[in-house]
């Protein structure tokens, strides 16, 4: 056995990527840290290896490939659609496993046929994992942020509440807390003494006067020159907050949301289950369901083993650039995620692309796949 740490199946993996018609890319190991922190949030800071350039720029060791591949795509201006494949080392501080390990994956940028592109991502991921683990059963979990957004939208909640719920999607605990709050509002919202004064002066009903008052206060306190939030922002959000405080989710709607979040069915049965849910609840979510159905039928055309996939309505990732499909591939009966992916239509514009570029992709956890292969050897 060669004394290198590249996964033993690296060559086969690259051959798979090539047969799938992807373009292989590499990116520098040392990356600017800013885009990762800006996209994934401050929590990432503890999990990446950061350093500084001589000029004080924050740098990090590549913690993943999606952002560097997308940045590269934006810089290269080679046009879309493009399907990129990568294989290389990533660096993260992990509780389990080493701090440097190989990751591979495919990023599919710019295909406007989202149902087909989603289906291809899921089936490619399943196929590649299955090729490494012949004869083993995979289990795939699939979720869809867009369906949840449609359900929340159809419930008739004020915009502020919709935003809160959508933002919490994928974070079970936080979402549950918000729903409980909606059902039993503890207080009518917390408003400071200044707001009470504004209300007595009748400023809250008159947006123009309110904006003028906020602007004058900013001026008087020397805050205005560098203020990030404008008087208009503050006045608008104050109005939104009053709406939030006055909203109560009725029992029936809350039951609908709870019933939706409890859906966990084989993907083949999901379109019927969602249709039945829409019928029973009376919520208008037809557009999202049409797109969901289109993805399921596209997926069955790819020849992927649909029986291995379950749809779980509450499955999502609480990051604001994920927009639709999310999925994870595991070995049946284990909880180690071997491949994970999803649709991130908002990422490229957030990273600075001028036009909207739909995107879907997945990454493969090669060290876990190696472990799964080894466990098979041990079992035999």
């Amino acid at each position, binding site marked *: 056995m060669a004394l290198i740490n590249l996964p033993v199946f690296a060559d086969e993996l690259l051959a798979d990527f090539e047969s799938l018609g992807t373009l292989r890319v590499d990116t520098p190991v040392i990356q600017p840290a800013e885009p990762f*922190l*800006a996209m*994934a*949030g*401050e*929590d990432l*800071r*503890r999990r990446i290896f950061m350093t500084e350039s001589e000029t004080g720029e924050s740098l990090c060791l590549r913690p993943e490939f999606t952002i560097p591949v997308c940045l590269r795509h934006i810089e290269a201006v080679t046009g879309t659609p493009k399907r990129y494949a990568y294989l290389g080392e990533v660096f993260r501080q992990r509780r389990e496993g080493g701090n440097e390990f190989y990751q591979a994956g495919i990023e599919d940028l710019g295909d406007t046929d989202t149902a087909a592109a989603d289906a291809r991502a899921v089936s490619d991921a399943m196929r590649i994992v299955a090729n490494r683990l012949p004869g083993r059963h995979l289990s795939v979990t699939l979720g869809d942020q867009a369906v949840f957004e449609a359900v929340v939208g159809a419930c008739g909640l004020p915009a*502020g509440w919709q*935003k*809160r719920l959508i*933002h*919490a999607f994928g*974070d079970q*605990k*936080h979402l549950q*807390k918000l729903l409980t709050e909606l059902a039993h509002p503890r207080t009518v919202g*917390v*408003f*400071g003494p*200044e*707001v009470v004064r*504004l209300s007595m002066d009748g400023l809250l009903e008159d947006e123009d006067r309110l904006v003028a008052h*906020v602007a004058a*206060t*900013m001026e008087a*306190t*020397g*805050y205005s*020159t*560098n*203020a*990030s*939030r404008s008087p208009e*922002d*503050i006045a608008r*959000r*104050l109005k*939104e*907050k009053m709406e*939030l405080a006055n909203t109560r989710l009725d029992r029936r709607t809350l039951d609908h949301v709870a019933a939706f979040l409890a859906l966990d069915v084989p993907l083949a049965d999901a379109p019927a289950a969602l249709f039945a849910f829409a019928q029973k609840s009376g919520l208008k979510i037809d557009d999202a369901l049409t797109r969901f159905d289109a993805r399921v039928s596209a997926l069955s055309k790819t020849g992927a083993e649909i029986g291995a996939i379950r749809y779980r309505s509450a499955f999502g990732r*609480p*990051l*604001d650039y994920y927009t639709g499909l999310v999925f994870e591939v595991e070995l049946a009966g284990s909880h180690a995620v071997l491949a994970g992916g999803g649709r991130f239509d908002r990422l490229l514009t*957030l990273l600075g692309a001028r036009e909207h570029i739909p995107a879907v992709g997945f990454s493969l956890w090669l060290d876990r796949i190696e472990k799964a292969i080894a466990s098979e050897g041990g079992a035999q």
Partner: protein
Amino acid sequence: MTITIALPSKGRMKDDASAIFERAGMKIVAVGNDRSYRGRVEGADDVEIAFLSASEISRELGNGSIDFGVTGEDLVREGLANADARVEFCARLGFGHADVVVAVPEVWYDVDTMADLGDVAADFRARHGRRLAIATKYWRLTQNHFSGSHGIQLYRIVESLGATEGAPASGSADIIVDITSTGSTLKANHLKILTDGVILRSEACLVRARKAAHDGDPVVARIIAAVRGVV
């Protein structure tokens, strides 16, 4: 075995800590001259005193090179991951009070709770082209409070090592996480504390590094009991 206690090396904290130990029957005398960084307890040869800066004390507790330390709870919780697993807060000493708080500009009339801040943070990038920026030197406490307790992920920390209260007005950050004891500096800078924005009510504590060797050590037990008896 000799037990090492680290005390703050200067200022009010040093005087207050020495006073507590004296009341507890452990009069501390400097070894050599008054400015020395080493001391001992009168009549106790098995106890050594090291005078260190408050932030050094939390670090040394974390790596176990001292047995006890007197320092602010904020510094220990900020300096050490999983603080409670690595150290024991034996006694709260009643001085060095400071709250670590989340404060926003007073003129943000729409923001009084962390939930409000979460709403603002969620929209921030779409409206202003960047994440909500928080000036602080308390990275860990901020992350735990925002992500752990309130599900807020979308913000950026801007490191600030001094005059943090001025950051919102100068435009280097939108809000701050900082310590305050009376709130007067916040007020002077037109900032307000969120109603659920108190991350930690800190004060000086007697802190023990968790070491297996401490189990059943009579000196360790005696020190804890003596200090607890006078606070």
